[in-house]
Each structure stands twice: as C-alpha cells, then as structure tokens.
C-alpha cells in the first residue's frame, strides 16, 4: 500500500505536473477576484476566507477526474480490481496520495494568498486549519464522482457537476468556522468539529461508494 502511495505521488510530481497545476489554478482564481470586486482592502479582508475556500474547492476538483481514468486507460485498474487487498483500501490510499499531491500544496499556499486578501493573522491561521481539515473531504467525495465517471470519454466536467453539490456542506462549515474564529461571539469549535466529522464520514463513505462504482464500471 505504501508502494501505491509513493507511486501516485511520483506520478503527480513527474511530467504532467498535476500537483503544481492545482496550486497555480488556486492562485490564479484568487488573484482574479479583486479585479471583479475592486481593490477595496476592507471588503477583500471580509470576503477573503470565502474566496480562499471556493478557490481551494475548485482547485482540488481540477485533477480529480484523472484519479481513476488514467488507471483505467492503461489497464492498471483491472489489476487493482483483481487483488486480494480490498478495493476500498486501494481507493482510500489513492485518495490520500491525491490529497497529499494536490490538497496539501493548497493548504500551504493559502497563507500567501491570505496576505494578498489583506486578511489578518488570525483569519489566515483559521483558514489554513479549516482547509487542512476540510480538503480531504472534498477529495473523498470527488473520488466517488471520479469512479462513477471513469468510463465516460469526457468525464472531467461531469465529475465537477456531480461533486460540487455534495461538497457544499464542507464549504458551509469550513467558511463558518473561519468567520467564527474572527468574529468574537460565535464559538469556533463547533463548526470545526462538524467539519472534522464530515471529513471522517466521507473518508468512510467515499471509498466504499467509489469501490462499488468501480466494480460495476469495469467492463
């Protein structure tokens, strides 16, 4: 299993550069926002956490459609389906590798973009923490979409359409946790706990559903 994790990491770093493109997309999306809403620093500071979250959500969806499609195209998926190791473990490890290659760089890039959004230190820290907790959930939900769309020729867009509605709860609790951290009266912990619960929930449900979809998509 460690072999699979390392292989997927290597693949994302090697030619193709999936990891870097995600971060680049994130930065570009966030950099475009001030042109749309205007360079009012107070406004940017207020909407900053939400912008960062939406940017991270879109960026982490970017490479997801290739998660299983690449494996299917070269026949590796067949071999993975045949093994003694349960498919859902394989899916889980693949998700973990995908998150480490695309989600983690987003979390690391978030503080830099937070400065661009004129957010203060507390807001940046809270955004980073919630992204760290929340982005794995997006990957796990996305895995289901990727598995469903695995045999479709143009699955990329479809994956986004399938996954975005499911990712809304993650977005809601992620952003509300950040605002709870900034604005005093609201407590920070409950939304963060709910976010963690969502991530754990999808960490279980996602691989199970994705494995089931992959079994039936193999043809």
């Amino acid at each position, binding site marked *: *299993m*460690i*072999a*699979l994790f390392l*292989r997927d990491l*290597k*693949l994302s770093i*090697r*030619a*193709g550069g999936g990891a870097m493109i995600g971060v680049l997309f994130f930065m570009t999306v966030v950099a475009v926002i001030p042109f749309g809403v205007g360079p009012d620093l107070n406004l940017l500071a207020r909407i900053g956490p939400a912008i960062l979250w939406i940017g991270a959500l879109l960026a982490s969806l970017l490479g997801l459609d290739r998660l299983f499609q690449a494996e299917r*195209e*070269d*026949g*590796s998926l*067949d*071999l*993975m*389906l*045949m*093994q*003694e190791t349960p498919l859902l473990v394989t899916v889980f490890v693949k998700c973990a590798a995908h998150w480490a290659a695309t989600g983690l760089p987003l979390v690391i890039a978030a503080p830099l973009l937070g400065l661009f959004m004129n957010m203060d230190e507390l807001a940046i820290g809270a955004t980073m923490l919630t992204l760290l907790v929340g982005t794995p959930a997006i990957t796990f939900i996305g895995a289901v979409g990727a598995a469903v769309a695995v045999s479709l020729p143009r699955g990329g867009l479809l994956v986004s359409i399938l996954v975005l509605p499911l990712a809304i709860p993650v977005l809601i609790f992620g952003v509300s946790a950040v605002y709870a951290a900034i604005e005093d009266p609201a407590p920070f912990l409950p939304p963060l706990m709910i976010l963690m619960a969502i991530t754990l929930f999808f960490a279980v449900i996602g691989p199970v559903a994705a494995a089931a979809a992959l079994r039936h998509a*193999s*043809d």
Partner: protein
Amino acid sequence: MRLLAEGLSARRGEDLIFNDISFALGAGEALVVTGPNGSGKSTLLRVLAGLLMAEKGSLKLENGPPEMRHPSELSHYLGHRNAMKRELTVAENLSFWKNFMGDSPGGSGRDLVEAVEAVGLPGIAHLPFGYLSAGQQRRMAMAKLLVAYRPIWILDEPTAALDAGADKLFAGLVNAHLDQGGIVVAATHQPLGLDRIQELRMTGFAGVDGGLWHDA
C-alpha cells in the same frame, strides 16, 4: 490445484456473448482459446479474471488456499493494455507491481533484474517505460508476470506486437510456468508452440436469446 468452469455464459450490455462454456484445468495444464474476432475470447478471459460477472455458471478453484474468495486473487491478467505508467521507469513500474501484488501462497516472485533478463531486455530497466517501443513494452508487461508469483496466468493476445524471436521467448516463459505446476489460459490467434494444451474454439453466435426486451 484445479480450475473448474461450469456452464459459463456472459453478456455485454444486452448481447449474450457466449453460452455454456465448461472446462477443467489441472496443475501444469494450459487452455488456448481461439476463434474469430468478436467471438467472445476477451470477454471469457475477463470473466475468468473476475472483471466481469458471469451471467450463469460458476468458476471454482479446487484445492486452493482456504481464505481465497475468487480465483482472480490467484491470477495474473495480461490484457490488451500493459498496465504500466509511461512516466515511470520500467524498474519503478515493476517494483510497484511486485510490492502491490505480493506473492500468492505456494511460490515467490522473481527478482527484478532476473525478470527483465528473462524477457530478453537486460540493461534498460532504468529507462522510462514510455521510451520503449511497442514490442519492448509488451515484453516488459510480461516481466510483470514474473515479479509477483501467481499460479494462474490469464493472457489476452499476449504475443500481439511481438516479433518471431520474442514469440519463442514467451512460449518458453509459459512452458516454464507450466513446469512449476501453474495454469495458463491464453487467447491468441497465433500458435503458441505449447505442448500440454487443451484448445477451446469459440465460434460466437448471433442472438440465440434476444435479450430482455424481446420475446424469447
């Protein structure tokens, strides 16, 4: 160890591809599946590999290890595609599959260097897989059969894109596997030059059963 298939039939979508196929293979025996294009060779092999559900019939392994759920766990499947990543080197690809698949009980996979030598391409394992020609890629995909031990080999057109010399080399590999008590099921147009083989000729048929949406 005995691989038993009884009355297998399979569908792809609505179409019934084949019906009522039975065979029994003991240790050290090979089954060569022949037949024209579209007669269902690949479909049969995918059913044997557990990648497609059989419509009817059963697939059993007698005297296999007790904790096994499906014969596919003891099988290698070499399909039309090589299951290797172009971006990674051959050695990285092979060592990944060696680690990921592990060995089935009753044998152990060969060393990477040995396996690459056995397919006649020593010294280029450090190259990215994508740099190799189609024939070389196919041979490296066969090296994958050697690095992790599996008693059953399911091979779909294994010698496509191979020249005559490589053909012979491959026949040697299959024979060595059979000598060790392995089982081989191969679909091929070419004669593999194997002894100890049974042949299954698939003819393909058109619509004995029109499917769910027609009156039978």
